[in-house]
């Protein structure tokens, strides 16, 4: 608990970032409940519909306590022109009934956080298939945000283990492990990623692809980290407090994991938070090339990939870029958080 208080005192921006990150993750977890529509629900009559405006005043200037939306009607399909029908008021309700879905895959429910009884509500607009972008962003967060965390955990586990052992024991072990690391670092990571992906068949289920991406990304990530950890361990093991721990008769593995590794935290915590965005972007890159998470399941990366190179969308439907904003927000929050955590990890700053 202490760490939150310290974070707030020392680095307010990173404290706020922490809350934004927590908020984003809870959106991802509760996507089934918060999103008004399923991620694959297509509204064929409203493709590329702009974000629905939420109103309190109707066309006569009368105030409504309950916010409402108007219906959007496609008037010119070739130009994608929409008109707002101001005659029909569709009030927004909490806990409205909709299609049956399982919340968190466990609890079947028909009620969602908010929605409309008549008409439709697309907070972030729709894509060319008429799917609600807001709902898809929430579902996509599940992929994009968890890939970062899981990937980082795997590659940090490998990095600490291999870097720690290599640096501490040195000699032959170090030699062998570092050559292994160099093999991984030898290839430009982008091509390594493509090559690794190419080894596996294309027709995998979404879940398999997901696992595959996590593994590929962490296989790429751990090598550089292991090298850095090794370097730090190499210098920290010469520190005098390590000698005095040895003089106390503390066993070797305890020295590595209690005295040496924690002293790399001021660096590695920052590195961890700074590398999460890399995983999110890595997934987007794969999706962009059609090798990532496959439609209809959304990830922030594959939602963006549809717009890239499609000028019609970029000029007519800029709301399709909203997933990009979320990637940006996540990255910047993790960066700030990493900065703050580094300060907080060092007792000298307390």
């Amino acid at each position, binding site marked *: 608990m202490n760490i939150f208080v310290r974070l707030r005192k020392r680095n307010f921006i990173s404290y706020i970032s922490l809350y934004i990150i927590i908020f984003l993750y809870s959106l991802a977890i509760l996507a089934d409940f918060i999103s008004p529509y399923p991620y694959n629900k297509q509204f064929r009559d409203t493709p590329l519909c702009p974000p629905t405006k939420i109103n309190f005043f109707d066309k006569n200037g009368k105030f409504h306590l309950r916010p409402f939306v108007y219906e959007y009607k496609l008037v010119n399909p070739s130009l994608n022109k929409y008109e707002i029908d101001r005659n029909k008021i569709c009030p927004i309700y909490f806990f409205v009934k909709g299609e049956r879905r399982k919340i968190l895959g466990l609890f079947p429910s028909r009620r969602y956080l908010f929605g409309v009884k008549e008409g439709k509500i697309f907070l972030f607009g729709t894509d060319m298939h008429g799917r609600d972008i807001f709902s898809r962003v929430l579902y996509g967060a599940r992929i994009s945000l968890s890939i970062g965390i899981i990937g980082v955990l795997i590659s940090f586990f490998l990095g600490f283990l291999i870097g720690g052992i290599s640096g501490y024991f040195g000699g032959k072990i170090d030699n062998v492990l570092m050559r292994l690391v160099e093999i991984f670092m030898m290839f430009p990571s982008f091509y390594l990623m493509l090559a690794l992906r190419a080894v596996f068949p294309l027709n995998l289920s979404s879940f398999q692809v997901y696992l595959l991406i996590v593994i590929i990304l962490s296989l790429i990530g751990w090598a550089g980290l292991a090298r850095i950890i090794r370097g730090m361990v190499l210098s920290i093991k010469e520190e005098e407090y390590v000698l005095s721990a040895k003089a*106390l008769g*503390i066993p070797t593995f305890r020295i590595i994991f209690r005295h040496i590794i924690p*002293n790399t935290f001021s660096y590695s915590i920052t590195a961890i938070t700074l590398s999460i965005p890399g995983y999110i972007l890595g997934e987007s890159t794969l999706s962009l090339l059609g090798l990532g998470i496959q439609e209809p399941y959304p990830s922030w990366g594959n939602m963006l990939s549809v717009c890239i190179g499609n000028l019609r969308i970029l000029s007519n439907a800029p709301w399709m870029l909203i997933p990009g904003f979320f990637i940006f927000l996540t990255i910047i929050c993790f960066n700030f958080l990493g900065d703050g955590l580094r300060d907080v990890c060092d*007792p000298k700053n307390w």
Partner: protein
Amino acid sequence: MGKILEIKNVVVGNEEIKILRDISFEVEEREIISIVGESGCGKSITLRTIIKLLPQNLNILSGKIFFEGLEITKLKEKEMQNIRGKKIGMIFQEPSSFLNPLFTIGNQIEEGINEKVEKDKKKERVIKILEEMGLSYNVYYQYPHQLSGGMQQRAMIAMALINNPVLLLADEPTTALDVTTAFGIISLLKNLILIHNLSIIFVTHDISLAKYLSDRIFVMYAGIIVEKGPSIEVYNSPLHPYTQKLINCLPEKYNKGEKIKTIEGEVPSFKNLPLGCPFSPRCEIKNKICEKRIPPEIKIGNRIVRCFKYGNFMES
């Protein structure tokens, strides 16, 4: 009184350099030994040899070390871990860098506790020993950087003593401290002998302090122990020319207004040591033989000295 430590003809170094050459001595129960000598003569290396924590590039090349009758030169690293901190405690030269900055003092000392006891018991024990060292129990919760040098040194001593070792290796525990604080630490160490029933090897370059504190003094020069004997005798009538000069240079031996005396010449570097007695280049009474061979240990009464002046070598 029995011997608790016995070092026989130990040589430490690697292919290129020998840092310690033919070191032999023993330590009795409840004895305080001082090792004195100029900076760089190998005092710290001697202590680190005893607990087998030498720098990576240095090794024990020959010789034997017995601790409580056990030949520790033969022990494996795992077995040494059961001796370090439990039977032999060590206090280091520079307390601020020898404490891990990430953990509280209490945490670090507790970690060293050997037996499997509950957390509460451990804490009690740590606080008790901190108080014995003249520190308040608050120190338990503090981080190293929040303590002064003297407090850190006391915390180090507490850490070294937490398992009631029988031998304490103290590497210049007072050099970094002011006179009053240093004096506090010294009286603490003297008291510890009475309470904890332990022997101390105390490293210092202050021979007057050594005389005040210890039973015996070992004088070291360039990796060789040149003189060993009871403190008062060594101090009052030094045998080895190096010890004589060292004592002559002490400030308390000066008359008012006299020029500061130093020993002429320089400490030889370990890379190119003289073939014979390492002190011979600076020695005023040297002979031919001094430049050819390293003098053997010569016993004179209670004392042992390594100088060709004694015995009947000079003629040959």
